[in-house]
């Protein structure tokens, strides 16, 4: 096979405020053959996107090519004129960026957008465009392409939009596809479907792919070769099997150990510290500060990429050592709950976003639209962690907001301890507010950019405990200590912190109130896996020392598995299944739980997802019957459409809501 993308000794950098040139990519060599799929992995800031974009001659504003060259199919990319580059990009070399589904033009029909892509990037005469557009949509496995061409992007689900974006990239018959986090932000089930599609397309067309992702599970599924990047360098490169199964670089080992696994209930091991900022890597190994087996020479001499004994290349003096070392492969066991006092009780909670008139317009339906969330009855024990899982739009955040009093429920009751809670924040007593604290998904959004860390921590301290002056600051420092940040962070602004540090501050703010119940809404989704592991460890620690009750919302089942004592599965705002974590994750499960579990991608080239249900996103729950009726792979028939399924209990504490009998559920 011939080399299609050939990157030689490339360095890319920017000039910092101090006038120094800081390198974002350092002397990178990468060759991709046609028909090959190479995965680029690394923490955020490691330069993986920059490298992929450089392959198509694109550098973000402020970045400069310092050294090296990139050739595509024999043409020197950086020597091309603008027009020539534009002809190549989108034609033979196509990019699918993150959220590309959302970046479709909202006011243009899908067909028109495809025609535009065909006009720009294919040699096809205009009268063939219509048939070709339909053919392309078929290629990306969209049902009923003829109907889809007439639709607008907002009439498609996130997964379908992403498929259209892929179809557009295929319009120019590309020889190579660059994919930058193409499934990040999509649901597990949707992600699994898209990845299968990419695999098939690559195989059918013999295309080369460069797949950038921080998700090793996705990489394991589509890539044949993996390149691990750290601080702008390649530190390990080899076949997917070699990199994921027997990594020889300490960084890759650390990265793998920090990923929670579905089949293992232990806490993942955090990789402490953070990568050096561009230009700060120093003379020695860039990973030295975080490496467990670092030696003196690592700090003074920069290791070179060298072939490793078992294939691939590695940048480490002690690669052989590292391989033998293997390190701890499992972390500490999480704290498990064993009590029976109820802390939080949700009784028949139902929440509706419908402001009747507006919703009628929006959905074009009658007035009795079923509520977004309905009939949620769960009780959570004191010190227990309840995991809440479900796809996007299943109402996870909505339930947390109702518990916090930010969204008044339409019906049902919330009881904390033995007191019924009023529905809104305004009606609640300060002690009731103090009791329940919320931590949000994205710390960039939940921390006021204009407040320093001490401002942020002082708010609950002043409000609930009336502290002031020196006491206030001392207490803030103490709380910061508890989330393992030093007191010198007190005067920083959020933009002077890393993502993980920001989330720690957000956690500290919640714990400053001394809450009994902490609601965690996707608290690790915006973070790198290595940072995620540290945050999970911290939450577990706080649970141990403070005896906190958590409701832990996540779309990542492996993360939920690690922390939760019990798990509730939601579909379209309705409970499908609830039980002890091991009961839900094994043994008999609701068909929807099975679908979710089947779609989970493990960072293991041998693991294969099972794709049961379609990745269609539903806009509103059905009015009658089982909420999962439209997508259920095991649908029994009309009864599922008309009758609400009964709760069945295979074991104490485990309940499944389905018409299928327990024996049959078990059989599969």
């Amino acid at each position, binding site marked *: 096979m011939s080399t299609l993308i050939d990157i030689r000794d490339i360095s890319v950098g920017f000039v910092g405020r101090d006038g120094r040139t800081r390198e974002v990519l350092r002397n990178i060599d990468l060759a991709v053959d046609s028909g090959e799929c190479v995965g680029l992995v690394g923490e955020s800031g490691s330069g993986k996107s920059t490298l992929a974009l450089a392959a198509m001659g694109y550098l973000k504003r402020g970045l400069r090519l310092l050294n090296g060259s990139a050739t595509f199919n024999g043409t020197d990319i950086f020597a091309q004129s603008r027009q020539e580059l534009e002809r190549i990009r989108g034609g033979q070399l196509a990019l699918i960026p993150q959220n590309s589904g959302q970046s479709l033009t909202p006011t243009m029909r899908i067909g028109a957008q495809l025609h535009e892509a065909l006009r720009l990037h294919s040699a096809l005469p205009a009268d063939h465009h219509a048939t070709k557009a339909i053919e392309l949509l078929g290629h990306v496995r969209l049902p009923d392409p003829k109907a889809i061409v007439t639709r607008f992007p907002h009439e498609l689900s996130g997964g379908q939009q992403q498929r259209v974006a892929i179809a557009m990239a295929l319009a120019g018959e590309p020889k190579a596809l660059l994919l930058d986090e193409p499934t990040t932000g999509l649901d597990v089930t949707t992600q699994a479907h898209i990845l299968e599609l990419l695999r098939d397309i690559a195989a059918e067309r013999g295309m080369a792919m460069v797949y950038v992702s921080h998700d090793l599970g996705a990489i394991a599924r589509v890539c044949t070769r993996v390149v691990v990047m750290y601080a702008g360098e390649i530190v390990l490169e080899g076949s997917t099997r070699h990199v994921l199964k027997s990594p020889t670089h300490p960084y890759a080992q650390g990265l793998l150990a920090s990923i929670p696994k579905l089949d293992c209930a232990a806490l993942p091991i955090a990789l402490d510290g953070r990568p050096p900022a561009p230009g700060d890597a120093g003379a020695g190994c860039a990973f030295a500060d975080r490496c467990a087996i670092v030696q003196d020479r690592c700090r003074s001499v920069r290791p070179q990429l060298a072939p490793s004994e078992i294939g691939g290349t590695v940048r480490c003096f002690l690669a052989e050592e590292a391989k033998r070392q293997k390190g701890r492969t499992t972390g500490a066991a999480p704290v498990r709950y064993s009590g029976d006092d109820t802390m939080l009780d949700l009784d028949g909670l139902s929440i509706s976003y419908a402001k009747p008139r507006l919703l009628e317009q929006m959905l074009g339906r009658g007035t009795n639209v079923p509520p977004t969330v309905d009939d949620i009855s769960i009780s959570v024990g004191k010190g227990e962690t309840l995991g809440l899982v479900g796809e996007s739009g299943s109402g996870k955040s909505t339930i947390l907001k109702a518990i916090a009093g930010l969204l008044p429920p339409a019906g049902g009751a919330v009881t904390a301890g033995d007191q019924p809670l009023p529905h809104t924040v305004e009606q609640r007593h*300060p002690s009731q507010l103090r009791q*329940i604290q919320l931590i949000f998904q994205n710390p960039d*959004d939940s921390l006021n950019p204009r407040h320093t860390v001490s401002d942020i921590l002082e708010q609950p301290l002043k409000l609930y405990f009336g502290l002031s002056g020196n006491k206030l600051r*001392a207490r803030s*420092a103490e709380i910061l200590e508890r989330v393992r940040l030093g*007191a010198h962070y007190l005067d920083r602004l959020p933009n002077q912190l890393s993502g993980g540090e920001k989330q720690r501050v957000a956690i500290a703010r919640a714990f400053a109130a001394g809450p009994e119940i902490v609601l965690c809404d996707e608290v690790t989704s915006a973070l790198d896996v290595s940072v995620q592991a540290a945050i999970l460890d911290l939450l577990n620690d706080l649970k141990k020392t403070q005896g906190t009750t958590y409701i832990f919302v996540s779309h990542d089942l492996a993360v939920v598995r690690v922390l939760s004592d019990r798990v509730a599965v939601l579909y379209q705002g309705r409970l499908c299944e609830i039980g002890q974590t091991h009961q839900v994750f094994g043994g008999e499960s609701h068909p929807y739980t099975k679908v979710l579990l089947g779609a989970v991608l493990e960072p293991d080239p041998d693991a294969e997802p099972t794709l049961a249900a379609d990745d269609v996103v539903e806009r509103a729950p059905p009015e009658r019957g089982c909420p999962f009726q439209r997508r259920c792979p095991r649908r029994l028939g009309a009864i599922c459409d008309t009758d609400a399924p009964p709760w069945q209990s295979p074991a104490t504490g485990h309940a499944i809501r389905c018409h299928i009998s327990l024996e049959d559920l078990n059989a599969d």
Partner: protein
Amino acid sequence: MTKIATTPAENTRLQRSLGVLRDVMARPSGTIGLTLVACHLILAIISPWIVPYDYKAMDSLLMLKGPSGAHWLGTDHLGRDVLTRVLLGGREALLVTGIATPIAVIWGGLLGIFFGLVGGRLDEVFMRVVDAFLSLPWILKMLVLIVTFGTGIEVLIPTLAFFYGIPVIRIARAATHDVVARDFISAARARGHGRITVISRELLPNVLDTLMVEGAMRWSWMLLAFSSLSFLGFGVSPPKPDWGLMIADARGFMSFAPWGVLGPVIALSSLIIGINLTADALAKALGIDRAQKAPV
């Protein structure tokens, strides 16, 4: 107990303002813009003491004379020194707009924040009204008022402040909407802070940045409007010097005595360019995306 950090607060409000100023100055647009604006302000303040002639002094022997050692910018059709009149000609404009701009930003900002917070039907209806109003040509709106109430500072300031506050409503409302949707507002509400605290501590600091940039933009538009009014004879009344008025007076002689127009035009445009450059640098320093700013 944990030891308390003894490092001085490095992120106080003053520190931040200084940081922003430094950032503005570090950009070419900021350096040039601020220098231009500062020169104008200083000259406007000290000009009565440094002008070479009396701005009213006419000399029929010196009508429309070109630049010379005695009259660097020549003389106008009444034989008055152009340099003197250019130096003094911005005072009235700066005074009026300098008072009207903050008023416009404050009332427009408050109303915009209010509607941004209230949301819903009321907000939608009100914004339609604002849009309709904005779509009328501004000069028409202002002339109606001035013709009704007469000219003079006491009319011009409220008029300009009123009209230029209206686009601020839109900007402030949009900025408020953006901030209100963010989780730190939900977090503050969920903690149980009162409405006033949420608005003053969480919302305002984030909206003020946008309003500051908007204020600078309004200022430059207002200067242009003021000069246009003078040009049309509705602003400053002669013989008081004013750039707009001077351009109007001198434009008839432009073909053979261009200095009469050139002086005030350069003065006015350099001030407006200076303000725009500063606003631009300020927006960049504060990280505000000016692309989403509503049209005038």
